[in-house]
């Protein structure tokens, strides 16, 4: 195999992930800010907190946040601290 063929193989070795995944990862700083706003509201608004405890995923959806496993896990961790 020539060096150029070897390089060609290396270029093919890393597949392109779906665009939506990459964009979601890039938006993490903004998404985290949004989640912090929700955490603050949970801390000061009793009714909102009860909604979150009853059904966290539904509460997130109603706030326009997609309750992905990563988002839900992060929010649960934040609420436990």
């Amino acid at each position, binding site marked *: *195999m*020539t*060096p*150029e*063929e*070897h*390089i*060609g193989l*290396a*270029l*093919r*070795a*890393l*597949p*392109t*992930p*779906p665009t939506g*995944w*990459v964009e*979601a*990862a*890039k938006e*993490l*700083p*903004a998404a*985290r800010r949004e989640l912090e706003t929700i955490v603050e509201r949970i801390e000061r608004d009793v009714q909102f907190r009860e909604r979150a405890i009853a059904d966290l995923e539904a509460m997130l959806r109603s706030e326009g946040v997609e309750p*992905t*496993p*990563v988002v839900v896990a*992060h929010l649960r961790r934040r609420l436990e601290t």
Partner: protein
Amino acid sequence: MDAATDAELVARCRAGDEAAWRALVDRYARYVYAIAARVYRLGPEDSEDVFQEVFARVFERLGTLRDDDALRPWIAQTTRNCAVDSLRRSGREIAVDEVLEDIDEGLDHLDEALTVHAALERLAPECREILDRFFRRDESYRTISADLELPSGTVASRIARCLTRLRDALEPEPGRNQPPAASGEKVAEQR
């Protein structure tokens, strides 16, 4: 693509520079995806969960990285941990054993590929585009020829010329401890 070193990107991310974070994601998205989908052979849903979890952990824990130059191995290890967790959650412990033997070899191969991709980003736009189309997007000569309005023969010769430039870009600079991307030889990490 941001030309900053990993250490520079990490420092900027820590300072809250969101453009640096996006550049970091761009730099490592293919690598993380390849580890999950190719080395650990996760399906699309599990790969997506691992992909998002890895970048979430990196974002949260960037402040704990002791050596800013060690971003690549740290991301690789984080991805491995998340992929193994995913396999275990799905009750596929047997699959973990099945793939273990291939993992180190697979990761070495991806490390080399990431180094080549990083060198590609340093080439002129003309070379980046044609090599990206041909190798990464798997476009045919005919498609590239039509899109770029070039004769097929020119496409072929440009690919060959750009590959040579990429090979030269992978040659170690004097004073840098990096072997060339020769046949069958592991390309050193560029950090």
